[in-house]
């Protein structure tokens, strides 16, 4: 992305009808490491790549529980993500207290989107620099949503965000039509294979128990995060050579990570 006129202020439109500051905020999401989500009829799975700033540091967690039926994976400014997840948890607690039921996922995502939109229309604020993949199971079934700094949100059958996510999306586009009837195990298998597409051409040469975390939620399955050594059984799918995987890699700008992003 190149420098533009009319991009200094969030309250200034460009003559083309764009607000560049919002688009720059969405760039921040692309700087975070990859996050992949897929949905079947009864389950949703999120797979994430945990980046670490150095050998000494722990790998940054990207999966958060919101309620027993909803969780998120983040990409972008971690601090902004923390604020949003705290807000989501409060919303879910309040809903449960008032209505004695779990909050519908679509409604929860709407409240996030509205919150993000507020900071795109104030001169005194900046947009949230984080995108979420929201995975949840409610009375209407399994859902996967993406939220943006712009305040938009979309529902997906499968999606990926973050660095080199295009490779994962290509894998998902090839396979998503089979996801609907899959069980949890097969869904996780696809999630790991999709996530692996994002590491092929970067310095993280492979998925390991240290840099991979996977989470799922669904029918009779509360939100559960699997990481560290527990991820090992999920990674065994990588040992099986998959010959028909074209490496259709379209690398996006991989500028070095400077800010507190993951």
């Amino acid at each position, binding site marked *: 992305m190149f420098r533009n006129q009319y991009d200094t202020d969030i309250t200034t439109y460009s003559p083309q009808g764009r607000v560049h500051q919002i688009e720059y905020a969405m760039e921040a999401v692309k700087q975070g490491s990859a996050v992949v989500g897929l949905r079947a009829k009864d389950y949703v799975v999120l797979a994430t790549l945990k980046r670490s700033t150095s050998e000494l540091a722990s790998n940054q967690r990207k999966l958060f529980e919101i309620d027993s039926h909803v969780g998120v994976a983040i990409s972008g400014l971690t601090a902004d993500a923390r604020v949003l997840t705290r807000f989501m948890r409060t919303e879910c*607690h309040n809903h449960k*207290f008032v209505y004695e039921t779990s909050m519908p996922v679509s409604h929860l995502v709407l409240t996030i989107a509205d919150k993000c939109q507020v900071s795109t229309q104030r001169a005194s604020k900046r947009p949230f620099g984080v995108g979420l993949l929201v995975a949840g199971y409610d009375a209407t079934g399994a859902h996967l949503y993406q939220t943006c700094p712009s305040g938009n949100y979309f529902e997906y059958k499968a999606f990926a965000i973050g660095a080199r996510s295009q490779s994962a999306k290509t894998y998902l586009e090839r396979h998503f039509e089979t996801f609907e009837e899959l069980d949890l195990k097969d869904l996780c298998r696809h999630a790991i294979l999709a996530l692996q597409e994002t590491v092929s051409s970067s310095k993280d040469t492979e998925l390991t128990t240290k840099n991979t975390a996977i989470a799922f939620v669904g029918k009779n399955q509360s939100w559960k995060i699997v990481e560290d050594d527990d991820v090992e059984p999920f990674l065994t799918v990588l040992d099986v050579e998959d010959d028909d995987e074209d490496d259709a890699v379209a690398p996006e700008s991989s500028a070095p990570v400077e800010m507190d992003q993951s």
Partner: protein
Amino acid sequence: MDPLLRPGHCAPCMPSALGAPQADVFDRMDVRAAAGAFGAAPVAGAGGALQASFSPYQDNGGTVVAVAGKDFCVVASDTRFGLGYSIPARKVSRNVVLTDQVVLATAGMQADTSTLHKVMRTRLRMYQQNHNKPMSLTSVAQMLANTLYYKRFFPYYTFNVLGGIDEAGEGFAYGYDAIGSHEKVKVVCTGSAQSLIQPVLDNQVDGKQLQMGADPPPALSLEQTVDLVKDCFSSAGEREIYTGDFVEICKITKTGVEIELFELKQD
């Protein structure tokens, strides 16, 4: 209706000074009858008005018990919802399982009980999310006390017992008053049949008030404790009108909470 007094006990007052016991939130007292009881001659023909009065509290009765053993705890409560001399409902739960090692049981006013339980459940969920672990028995005990004292000047009309297994694996119980005063014990009972059951538990489990030279009672197993609790409720149900219908018994062990429903008489 003084929540700081024991449930079911009003401050001593003139018997039948106000007619039928004021049970409901809204009640009417016959002013003329009241005047008569004080010895003054009733004012002939004048008004005899009914005065409505409002109290934010209601006593729905019920008894709750917690008995702790070496590595388990039994928390039990009856399920009768009483109001004055009536029974609006027979199967109302007074227990809430807060974690798989802690159960809260509450007697008193049912509206405050369910609200208190909701507040506690929400706060425990928040704790679990922020600390990445379930709340320990000791922490729940303190938080309940804080929650109750927070409403020191408009209390929850609730009489609580908390039972569970602490972080060392030992069973303990806590008894509370309406504004959060609490004590860590092995046995506690509160609610309408407190005065009938507490002395029995003191003697049979804690070995208090034994005759000279008598042996202290042996430590009870989980099954023996459950049988004792069932006997206590059956006996209390015979003598006390607010206790009866069913008893919901929560057995807490290191593997979690198991719930049993025990039938009592419905009279």
